[in-house]
């Protein structure tokens, strides 16, 4: 289902507009990340979709139908909603929490039971062990997982997530990101995901919408945004996390790299990532620091140690340098000054870079 904002403005009484003239179409089955500094209007944008806030001006449509035309409660029961503080009801068990919307929709008991089992199984939580616990008897990561499952419970086509992993420690956060990515690959929901963490945005987003004081300033794939920030604001927002100079015209390592990682799996505090165009997997720690590469075979065999310790290159290494190394290897991990893995150069990403140079735009 698509969600379309047309000239949407939201003004809270006596304040500057929280969202100003927003035009945005969220495509069916995509995970769109809304990102920007605190107070830039992300939450307001999200909450206008399920009508927890009403726009001051403009309209919002779902599959072409104005959301004003729905009955408020019916609209919301068809849209999953997850918030940062988990929003789990402390007086309800895990099962009761997950069942909230199915109950509102008057699903019969058998169907609800089955659904809870199915959902818990999706995140490898044992029904017998967890279904009858209260939220406070769960770890932060488990609570947030239940929050996500709850928003999926009635199988809504659209899901809104407001910094769902924002309060978690880095390890749990990355584990949940991986799970979400897997769920999404399987379920193909239309997800609108708010975060202020650019790493998370790049990892999860099919597209990223960057907001600044109520305005949408850039919308594009993670790659487009990392490589072609439209202005200083976006550039500095990204640069906080990726310490390289994007405006410099001479090509650097990162310009040749693919940055579109897919979290594959996590093991304790280590995370395995894959990337298009490379058969190898990449092992990083919870802070995304590069540990090494692992062959596909070893990952399949659950052999989670770096088997090749490829010397990574720095984001600002020159093209000459890179090409001289690249003769001998298939892929080259790229790290920043903090040894964080920010991209991988593969034959595919090199070709894309050349195509961009020749064609002058993104593939």
């Amino acid at each position, binding site marked *: 289902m698509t969600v379309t904002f047309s000239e949407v403005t939201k003004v809270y009484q006596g304040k500057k507009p929280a969202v100003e003239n927003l035009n945005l179409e969220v495509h069916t089955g995509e995970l769109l990340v809304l990102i920007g500094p605190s107070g830039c209007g992300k939450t307001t944008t999200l909450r206008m979709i399920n009508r927890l806030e009403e726009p001051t001006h403009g309209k919002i449509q779902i599959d072409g139908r104005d959301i004003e035309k729905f009955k408020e*409660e019916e609209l919301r029961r068809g849209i999953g*909603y997850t918030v940062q503080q988990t929003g789990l*009801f402390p*007086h309800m068990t895990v099962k009761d929490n997950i069942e909230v919307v199915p109950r509102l929709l008057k699903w019969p008991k058998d169907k609800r039971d089955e659904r809870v089992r199915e959902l818990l199984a999706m995140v490898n939580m044992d029904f017998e062990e967890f279904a009858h616990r209260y939220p406070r008897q769960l770890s932060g990561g488990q609570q947030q997982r239940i929050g996500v499952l709850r928003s999926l419970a009635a199988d809504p086509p659209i899901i809104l997530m407001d910094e769902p992993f924002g309060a978690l420690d880095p390890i749990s956060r990355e584990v949940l990101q991986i799970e979400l990515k897997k769920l999404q690959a399987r379920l193909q929901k239309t997800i609108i995901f708010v975060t202020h963490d650019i790493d998370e945005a790049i990892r999860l987003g099919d597209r990223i919408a960057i907001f600044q004081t109520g305005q949408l300033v850039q919308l594009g794939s993670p790659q487009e945004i990392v490589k072609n920030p439209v202005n200083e604001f976006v550039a500095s927002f990204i640069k906080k996390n990726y310490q390289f100079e994007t405006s410099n015209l001479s090509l650097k390592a990162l310009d040749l790299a693919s940055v579109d990682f897919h979290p594959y799996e996590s093991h304790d505090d280590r995370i395995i990532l894959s990337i298009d165009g490379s058969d190898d997997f990449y092992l990083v720690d919870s802070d995304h620091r590069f540990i090494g590469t692992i062959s596909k075979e070893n990952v399949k065999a659950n052999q989670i140690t770096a088997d090749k310790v490829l010397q990574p290159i720095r984001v600002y290494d020159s093209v000459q340098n890179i090409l001289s190394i690249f003769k001998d290897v298939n892929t080259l991990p790229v790290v920043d000054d903090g040894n964080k893995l920010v991209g991988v150069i593969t034959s595919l990403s090199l070709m894309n870079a050349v195509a961009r140079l020749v064609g002058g735009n993104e593939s």
Partner: protein
Amino acid sequence: MTVTFSDILSASFVHLYLSLIGTFAGGLIGFIVAVLGRNHARILTVFLTIAELIQTFPSIAMLALLLLVFGLGNNTLIVALALYGIMPVLQNTYEGLSAVDPMLIDVGRGMGMTKRQVLRRVELPLTFPMILAGFRVSLVTSIGIATIGVFVGSGGLGLFIYRGLQMLDNQIMLEGAVPAAILAILVELLIGLLERRLAKR
């Protein structure tokens, strides 16, 4: 005149029964006022003030006044207990409802609950332990006040206490006073236990 064990037992039951009815009626009024008035601060303040005023009224005077309206018998006592029972439940329900995290209400609405469903499924269950605490306080008080119900002709343990005092017979007096004290302590302990059970979740 001797008092048998079964006399004490049946008087204790009557005593508890009268206290429960009065407290329950008052609690219900307090609860309803708190729920309906939770978004109307001014109206609620009026009710709270009245309920507080009632609380300061000496129980003997209250019974005497009500006697004029309701006559001799259990009714006068029950009405008095109900009046005293409004305030603890009203106050606790109101405070409990105000203390519910607005985020939870927001999430309930966001998932498609109506306002009434939010009240029934989120706000009230979360407030329940506090409502119960209010009820406990008022029931314990009622058990005490009910002992003077004998002056307006109601049943219960007060009769033994009154008779014992009149006849200067300590044993009869204690046969009323001790069970009343035990009732109060039992109520305090049992409901308190239930509250702690609920709070553990």
